[in-house]
């Protein structure tokens, strides 16, 4: 009986969540971890909203790319770092199409536009400029990125992927140099659908700044401890860039009356009343990026169905060049039966939620460590690892198992000498988990 009920409930939820139609190249996914909840009590439900780009089978069909490569050429880049950066950039060129646009900006304390926005078909000129870069001077990161963005903005078109790749190994020391200032720049760029991918090289860069810049502009962030990693990272980045299927996705989640939003995990979102909005600048083919919303639901009457949220997204489909709109409705069902409720649970959402919560705690531990409270940070990370272990066993999730191992390894690496590196590793992982970065 209960099994049948559960099956019915599951069917109902599937029906309710079912896509009205797959119109564009994005699949809008919205599901709650607990489609069936116990009646008669206040509850917190978790809603997962994600955008998944469709795989592009035909690479020729991908959107044109407008890319700016911003290279740090400050004195600290001298030697292998700069050489690897140059070869990686050249390999990047090889994988672009002739009609893609590329500009190259190099900065130290001053900024040089080595190649203004140019078609990749003029490869020789671009390569010469890249190979001619020599390391020297201080770090005007803001100005370098600004010029890079300026080059991209010269040919800003709707149906193209606009991207700035920033490679830096040092702390910004000329011009605005706080994580917040760079974050604001990122936010402004995101409005024009220019994403900035930041690659931190070595152990000298400011990971907070680089993460902020990437996060606010919806780009990727990568940490290359060694210059030899660069090639792989650039390749992965290019993989992402070439797989963009949609841009400027605006997701609006209208919670049903009686449902109160509490927080949004994984991504910055605007909460106004019962409405939550967030934007996702780039939607990559074959990748799902999601947010988790925790909301409070009032006590319901058993047997009653109640709408939870309506999720709407509008985006620019790069393959068709059209603006698309998609909508999902998520509903809740109240029950008296614990078993029915448990049976209806969606493990994948629960895993995602656990992951996000553990990630929050990992962030908290990093803050504690920043304040010098090493022991407390260690304790928190260990507890986090245990929490993840337990959940991994419950949901049989290797992903959570790995995260548990990462956390327990973090706990062991909080001592002073390795902290600089460890902090970069943690920030990178936190960001990776937040935005579900593919590399």
């Amino acid at each position, binding site marked *: 009986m209960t099994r049948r009920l559960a099956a019915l409930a599951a069917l109902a939820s599937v029906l309710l969540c079912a896509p009205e139609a797959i119109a564009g190249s994005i699949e809008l996914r919205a599901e709650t971890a607990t489609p069936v909840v116990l009646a008669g009590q206040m509850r917190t439900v978790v809603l997962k909203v994600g955008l998944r780009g469709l795989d592009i089978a035909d690479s020729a069909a991908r959107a044109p790319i407008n890319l700016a490569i911003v290279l740090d050429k400050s004195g600290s880049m001298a030697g292998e770092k700069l050489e690897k950066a140059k070869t990686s950039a050249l390999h990047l060129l090889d994988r672009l199409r002739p009609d893609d646009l590329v500009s190259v900006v190099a900065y130290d304390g001053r900024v*040089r536009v080595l190649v203004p926005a140019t078609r990749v078909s003029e490869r020789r000129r671009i390569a010469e400029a890249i190979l001619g870069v020599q390391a020297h001077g201080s770090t005007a990161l*803001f100005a370098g990125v600004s010029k890079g963005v300026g080059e991209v903005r010269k040919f800003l078109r709707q149906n193209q992927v606009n991207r700035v790749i920033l490679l830096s190994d040092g702390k910004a020391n000329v011009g605005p140099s706080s994580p917040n200032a760079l974050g*604001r720049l990122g936010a402004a760029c995101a409005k024009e659908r220019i994403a900035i991918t930041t690659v931190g090289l070595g152990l000298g860069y400011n990971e907070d700044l680089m993460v902020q810049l990437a996060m606010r502009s919806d780009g990727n962030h990568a940490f290359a401890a060694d210059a030899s990693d660069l090639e792989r990272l650039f390749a992965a980045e290019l993989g992402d860039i070439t797989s963009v299927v949609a841009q400027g996705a605006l997701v609006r989640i209208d919670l049903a009356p009686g449902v109160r939003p509490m927080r949004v995990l994984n991504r910055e979102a605007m909460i106004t009343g019962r409405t939550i909005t967030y934007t996702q600048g780039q939607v990559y083919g074959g990748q799902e990026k999601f947010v988790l919303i925790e909301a409070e639901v009032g006590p319901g009457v058993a047997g009653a169905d109640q709408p939870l949220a309506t999720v709407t997204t509008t985006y620019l489909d790069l393959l068709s060049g059209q603006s698309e709109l998609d909508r999902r409705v998520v509903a809740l069902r109240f029950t008296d039966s614990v078993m029915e409720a448990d049976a209806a649970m969606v493990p994948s959402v629960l895993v995602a939620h656990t992951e996000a919560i553990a990630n929050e705690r990992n962030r908290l531990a990093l803050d504690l460590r920043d304040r010098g409270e090493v022991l407390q940070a260690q304790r928190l990370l260990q507890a986090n690892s245990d929490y993840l272990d337990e959940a991994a066993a419950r949901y049989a999730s290797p992903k959570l198992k790995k995260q548990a191992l990462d956390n327990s390894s973090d706990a062991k690496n909080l001592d002073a000498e390795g902290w600089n590196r460890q902090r970069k590793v943690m920030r990178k992982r936190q960001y990776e988990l937040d935005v579900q970065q593919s590399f």
Partner: protein
Amino acid sequence: MRRHLLIALICMVVGPLALLAALAGKMLQDEETLLGHRFRELLGQRLDDSRSAITEVIGDLEVELAQGIESTPIDREGLRAFERGQPLVRQVFVADAEGRRLHPLADGEASQDERDFLERTRAIWEARAELARVGPAEGNEAGRALARGGVDSTWTLPASSAGSLLPSSASPQAEVAQQQAPQAVYAQQQALPPNSPVAGETSPEGQVPAADSLAGLARIREQGWIAWYWEEGLHLLFWRRRADGLIAGAEIERAALLQRLIAALPATGEQASLIVVADAQGEPLYQWGNHEPDDAEAPLARLGLAPPLEAWALLYYGPEDDAPLALPTSRFVVLLGLGATAIVLLGLAVFFYREWSRNMREARERVSFVTQVSHELKTPLTNIRLYAELLADDLGGVDDAAEERAAVIVSESQRLSRLIANVLTFSRRGRPASERARPFDLDGLVRATVDHFGPAFRERGLEVVRRGAAPRPVLADEDATGQILANLLSNVEKYAAGGGAVEIEVEQDPRRTRVRVRDHGPGIPPGLRRRVFEPFFRARSDLTEGVSGTGIGLTIARDLARQQGGDLELVPADDGACFELTLPTAPETTDPHGESQR
């Protein structure tokens, strides 16, 4: 003499040179000032180009924002969508014509960003009195000062936006009236969720009308800027009075504005200079060029940006030798001219000096020759005189005619002796006088000298009249005094024989003894009185025609008188010439015989 000439020559060279150098220096300085001015003007122009680029970005931004603000529907969704689409807009706001804020409101529908915005801009919404007080001139300064002082919530009205036109209607009464006005329409206060972070603090804000001075500004102007400082620096707010009377505006996304400015400004290429966009603290926001200034290097030029960014400035740094190229060449030309003049003047000076030296040497040689000859003449002459006198004695009473001839020989040889003595004395001129002063009886000397000239005077019909006497001896060299008197009497004999008489007057007081020799000859014209003591000067050629003389008699006489602490002067007289010789009277103690001789 030589020293004087040297000094004169040096003056001749140095004087004009110094004058020329001063003039050239002044000229160069003027030129440098002028060139410096022109250079700065040039730099200013270069900076001006960059400022124009910035002003253009701001202008475009104003147009873009104004259009956006006019066309955006005034509802929350519309405004938020506007924000989402505008990279340069961080937050929009709307107020009604009275300045009461309609959006954003800190109610349950407000997002966290909107609450943050209200916190950032609280000064604008609350401090209406300040808004009215901050004038156009002081606004900027105050803002800078406060920014330096680290006060993060300060804001100011830049000159462009505020103007001096703040409404006088913002009187206290009006303010109070507005505060008390019913707020029903705008009090969209809702019950905030209990965990809303700023619910407690901000809930009254929804009811408070917004700054009325913004409304006041909007009554006068159509649009403008408000600048204030918050955390990381200058924040800008653009507002515009819409066609429907609402005041809408936007907080500018600082980072995005800076990005636009940087993109619009040149990148570093081959520029030898360095141009820096600096914020109010002088920190570089962006810079381009290849010049590497030292820490202490001052900018060659500075140009403030146009409003609303007047707190920022463009600074020009450059290598100094980039400066006026014309200056070194003109300096070179001037120095060359000065050098050439110096060489010419020096050459002239050397030439004159050598000429003068040669003349002097020749003169010395001549004098030396004459002196030697005179010396050679002295001994035979003494013998001639001696034997002539002996001869005259021998002939005395034997042969009157022969005796007279012998007397003439004596007289002429005496004259020759005097001449030689004068020549020898003259050749010793300038050397220190031998110290031979001792007291002697002046009257006796005068008598002897007059006796000496007796035959010659008698022959020429000159009568000697003596007056006065020197009861006490004088302290002087007797030989030298004799030579002076002889020279004076010789002159009388030569030039004033026609006068018929010569008066010799002696006068004595305890300190000085004066001998006046006066003739009644033609005298000396007043204009020449000064020059009669100059060597080789002869008063009147018509008079001296046919009269022998060396022209050094008076010179020697005066020299000798002065060497003995006395003097020889030409004193004015009715007719003829009157010379007065002054000699020191011997002190009483030193002369015990003075009394007995009297």
